[in-house]
Each structure stands twice: as structure tokens, then as C-alpha cells.
């Protein structure tokens, strides 16, 4: 392994590196609870309806029952989702509802993602707008 070049290691970061770092800094602000792909899909489905049954989430996301249970439990403990257990006829039914907190988290996440998308990237050499 070659030792790092002392001249470049001690040099101030280039403008391009600073800009990229500034542009990517919001990644650190991403809500990890929402960022997980399965949970992101669950929240997106819940955002379009008043409440959604377990079976509907299972059909749309294609997740297994165990995976879905585990992710919805995490979302519930974070206060993003409310769980209702009831009977539909004689069959027990579990339905989920997005809480205002969950909706805000999803909206913030999507906004942040849109800010980070390549189409919103500033032209090279120009600092990002803050």
C-alpha cells in the first residue's frame, strides 16, 4: 500500500469537492425509519388512503407476512402508523393508518430526495443554492 501523498492530503479541498460535499450533506438528514425501502413503500401506500388492511399492503408491496409485520411494528413504535384490530365478519382484520407525524416524515423525505435528485443538481463549479 502506498502512503498518502502529503502534498495533496494537506492541501485545502478543491471547489468541486466542497460543492459536492455541501450538496450531499442533506443525505445525513434522511430519516432512516422512512429510508428503508420496504417501509418507504408501506408509507407511500398508506399516504393515499384513509386506512389500509394488512392484506392490501401485502398485495401491493409483495412483502411476506413476517416482513410486513416487523416493518409495520417499527413504524408503529416510531409513531408514524396507527394500528386498528377489528373483525370483518368473522375474520380478524388488522388495518393501518398513517398518522400526521408519519405523513410529515414521508413528505419531508420525498422533498429531500427530490432536492438530491441529479436533475436538481447545480451546474459544476457553481455552489448549491441554500
Amino acid at each position, binding site marked *: 500500500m502506498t502512503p498518502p501523498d502529503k502534498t495533496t492530503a494537506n492541501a485545502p479541498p478543491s471547489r468541486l469537492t466542497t460543492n459536492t460535499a455541501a450538496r450531499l450533506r442533506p443525505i445525513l438528514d434522511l430519516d432512516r425509519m422512512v429510508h428503508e425501502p420496504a417501509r418507504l413503500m408501506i408509507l407511500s401506500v398508506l399516504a393515499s*388512503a*384513509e386506512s*389500509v388492511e394488512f392484506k392490501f399492503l401485502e398485495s401491493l408491496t409483495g412483502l411476506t407476512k413476517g416482513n410486513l409485520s416487523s416493518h409495520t411494528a417499527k413504524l408503529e413504535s416510531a409513531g408514524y402508523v396507527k394500528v386498528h384490530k377489528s373483525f370483518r365478519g368473522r375474520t380478524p*382484520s388488522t388495518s393501518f393508518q398513517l398518522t400526521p407525524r408519519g405523513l410529515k416524515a414521508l413528505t419531508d423525505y420525498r422533498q429531500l*430526495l427530490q432536492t438530491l435528485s441529479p436533475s436538481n443538481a447545480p451546474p459544476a463549479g457553481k455552489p448549491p443554492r441554500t
Partner: protein
Amino acid sequence: MDAAPRPTLPLLDALNAVTRDLSKFAGSAAGLGSVLGGALCLVAYLAHGLLPAPLPPAARLTFAAFPLAWIAVKETLRRRYYQRFGLAVPPVPRTDRAVGIFCLIVTCAVSAGVTATVLAVNRPWTVERVGYLAFVLLLPPCALLFRSAEEFIVGVFLLCQAAVCVAGHRYAFTETYTILFPIASVGLIAAGVHQHRLFLAARKRLLDLRARLPQEAA
């Protein structure tokens, strides 16, 4: 092992759209159920106008069965066919909720008024009279299952004509306002066909989406 692909924003928007379309079938959309209701309403309307009074017992029983058969088929289709992917309840706008409550209150008031009138008349309790009263009392609970304006008009008409048929009479339809019933029927049939096509398209999009979504993303 490859990392699971992340759902992109367009994919999430597609998920939203499919959820919105499928959730309509827990709300005002009934698809083929609406088509059946509209068709039964048209048949009953024409039959009342064309058949001579008094109606034969077989015709009376058939017309009396119309609303019950329609509600049974409509709700079965909704649960077994349109909600096969599970239930997603759509957000109901406040105005729609208010209109629904208003319609229910009017139905309850009409039902209570007619029931009081029937009970006030001192006549023997025949099968026809009991049948008529039964359909009048069925109006409010059935109105809970009518989820759109067209469904409400057609449903109330089917129940009212059933009550009249059971009592051995028929509607004459000499009043101009009765044209509302065939118009609502045609509207309900058109809406039903549109909703059914919407469901088929949503189902296709859902299956396509399932193939594109990250499988077992966790």
C-alpha cells in the same frame, strides 16, 4: 448478494395511484354492481309503466326481489372481486359525508312517516300490508349501503317499487319527475362500466408494479 434496488419516486407515485384507484371500490365505486342496479331499475321502471294492473303474483315477487338481489350481488362483488387485494378505505371528503348523512336522515324521516301512517290506519294485517311495511322499514339500513347519488336514487326507487308491488299496486309514472329514475339508471350503468374498466386497468398496473418493486426489500 446484490443490494435490493430502491423504490424510485416515480415508482412510489405509481404505488400511490394504484392505491387511490383500488380504494375507490371501498367507497362509491361498485363497478358491475352498479351496472346491474341500473339495469334492474330500468326494467322495473318500464315494467311499471307497461304492465297492466294488478300485477300477477309471479311479477310481484320478481320485482320485490330486485332490490334485495341487487344489494346482495353488489356487496358480494365488492368484497369478493373488487376487494380481492384487500381493503383500502379512501378518504371521504366532508361534503360527501354531509350529503350521505343528509340522505340517511331524509330516508329515516320518510320511513318513519310512512310507517306511522300505515300503523294509524285500522285495517287487517294481510301479507301485502306486512310486506309493504317491511320494505318501508328496510329503507334506512339499505340506504347505508348506497354510496353515491345515483346508487341512492336507484336503490330507493327499487325499494319503493318493491313495497308497492308487494302491496299489489304499480307506479303509473304520470308525473314528470319520475324521468329522474331512468336517467339515474343510465348514469349508474355508465359509471359502473367506467369503474369496472378502471379496476381492470388498476389490476394490470398493480401486477406490473409488483414485478418492478424491490422484492423482499428488507
